[in-house]
């Protein structure tokens, strides 16, 4: 175990470790594996009570196409994308600007404003439920994708600003001063010097926010009522109500809903973890 590198341990320990690793992985992922497996089970297996063993028939295509055919899951996924992507763009745009202001300039209210964002980011967001719902109603956005997008942008701006500010403040201040001496205006400093430098942070944040938003369930419940705007988490929950005891379909639906964030995580793992921990460990 850390900090002794395993190469320095006895061959026995090393062997145990190597064998234990996949075992631990399987136990850890058991719930997910079971779902994956069930999502390709045939109805026969389900009827026979074979819920946890290896599937006897493989109905990968049948189950998944059934999900797409019989339920509006494609619509849900579309909705999720339509919520997540604009949110990511909006939250990041706002927080870049704000993070730049807080990270670069020394002014009196700097820390106070910063704490406003950080503190807002930590509140139990349920407290916002009733007012945000009312606000959306007044704006005529209730039960529409716009309502979710605007709220998510605003709320995520807290976290993103926290993150961007820390990142920008860690940039060498001399770069900004050098640009100033070279004759750059404040906007040019932001656009030509700082923005290109925070690109890794942007990637990290985008990935992270995307998964956050994709997985949001609470606000989908609060702000969305109909299938026309329901993201996939909420959709899955309501499908679960219809699919009682049809676990192979529930599983396939779950897998479909889980796939995009997992795929993004796999593709951009480094950014994801960087985002998570940079934002976090600075706290």
């Amino acid at each position, binding site marked *: 175990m850390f900090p002794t590198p395993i190469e320095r341990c006895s061959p026995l320990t090393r062997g145990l470790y190597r064998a234990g690793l996949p075992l631990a992985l399987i136990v850890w992922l058991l719930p997910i594996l079971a779902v994956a497996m069930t999502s390709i089970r045939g109805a026969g297996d389900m009827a026979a009570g074979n819920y946890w063993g290896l599937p006897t028939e493989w109905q990968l295509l049948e189950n998944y196409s059934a999900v797409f055919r019989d339920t509006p899951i494609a619509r849900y996924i579309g909705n999720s994308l339509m919520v997540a992507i604009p949110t990511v763009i909006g939250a990041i745009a706002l927080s870049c600007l704000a993070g730049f202001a807080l990270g670069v300039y020394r002014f009196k209210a700097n820390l106070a404003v910063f704490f406003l964002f950080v503190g807002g980011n930590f509140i139990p967001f349920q407290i916002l439920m009733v007012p945000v719902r009312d606000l959306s*109603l007044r704006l*005529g956005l*209730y*039960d529409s994708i716009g309502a979710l997008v605007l709220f998510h942008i605003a709320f995520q701006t807290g976290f993103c600003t926290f993150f961007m500010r820390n990142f920008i403040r860690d940039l060498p201040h001399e770069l900004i001063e050098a640009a100033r001496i070279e004759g750059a205006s404040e906007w040019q400093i932001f656009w030509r010097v700082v923005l290109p430098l925070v690109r890794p942070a942007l990637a990290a944040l985008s990935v992270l926010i995307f998964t956050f938003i994709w997985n949001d369930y609470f606000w989908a419940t609060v702000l*969305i*009522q*109909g*299938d*026309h705007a*329901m993201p996939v988490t909420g959709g899955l929950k*309501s499908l679960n*109500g*219809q699919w*009682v*005891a049809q676990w192979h379909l529930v599983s396939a639906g779950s897998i479909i809903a889980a796939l995009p964030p997992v795929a993004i995580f796999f593709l951009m793992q480094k950014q994801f973890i960087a985002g998570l921990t940079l934002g976090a460990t600075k706290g």
Partner: protein
Amino acid sequence: GTLVINTDASDPAPKAAWEAMAKGFMAANPDVTVKINTFDHEGFKTSIRNFLSANPPDIVTWYAGNRMAPFVNAGLFEDVSDVWTKENLGTQLKSAASSMTINGKQWGVPYTYYQWGIYYRKDIFAKNNIAVPKDWKELLAASARLKAAGVTPFAIGTKALWPTGGWFDYLNMRVNGYEFHMDLTAGKVPYTDRRVQEVFDRWDELTKPGYFLANHASYDWQDAVPAFVKGEAAMYLMGNFAVDPFKKGGLSEAQLGFMQFPKINNVPMAEDAPTDTIHIPAKAKNKADARRFLAYVASAKVQTEVNAILGQLPVNKDATRPSDTYLKDGFTMLSNAYALGQFYDRDAPAEMAKAGMEGFQRYMVKPESRKEVLERLEQVRQRVYK
């Protein structure tokens, strides 16, 4: 013009029914375009509050009874007494008239309802030599015999709470009668009343011996269906919508029987028959076409067609009777019913209903908590109906 309809018809059959209605109406009224917004069944119950005030359609679906009261009181539903008078709905929709009336006015039009009752396994009854119970004693005896044979008498899944409401409704209506039940759900009687205690005395006779499916609080009503289908349980107190999953599960008409909830005390037999309705929001834009639509839906012909698709009962007394065995039985039963309840969660105000069903669930899981449950319900009653 355009007629916007918001419905909760997210399940396949209701969806088809509404599409048929829209099509029929447009055929009859070529000048009107019908636009249906379908909402998730559960989500609809919350979203209706918002769109009624913010962005009202011309027609909404809803439920009769107390469930409609908040909207009527908040002035969100249109008074449609004129339609009733004009179309003579008072007679045609007689059975539902009282549940559509508040302050002497009618606030919408019912278009479908269905019966509740006990579905049972004929084959298992036969195997165990049990006749269809006629009264409480026989029901208890049958249950005892089933239990002895290793069969759970009653399937039930109470995770979603409302199935407990069915049991309470029936026990109360059979023990104390319809009027008392209505007084109770209207908040006029304390839950600690001796007569309520008697309901629970009867209920105790089922819960204490363990006549309900074990772990029922883990299941939705559909989760309990397999137990019934597989013969692990022999009876199921449910609405008629359960027949479809029973049949899909593989039960034939030879195996599946329907009976009225047996008599307990000597009171007139009333039944639960939840009614689905349509209303015109007070702020609707196209009220003229909406009134036409109401009249259209109220007609016997349309109700016949729609309920054929829905697999439910038409409210209009002139509509054609259904051919389905269980619906036929149900129709007969309801026709002879002393009165109809809408169901606990529609008859009682929402907050009371929630607390009540939660209490019933708690009681069914832990019968020994009966006293606390009732005391708690009484507390809630005092607050809700103040």
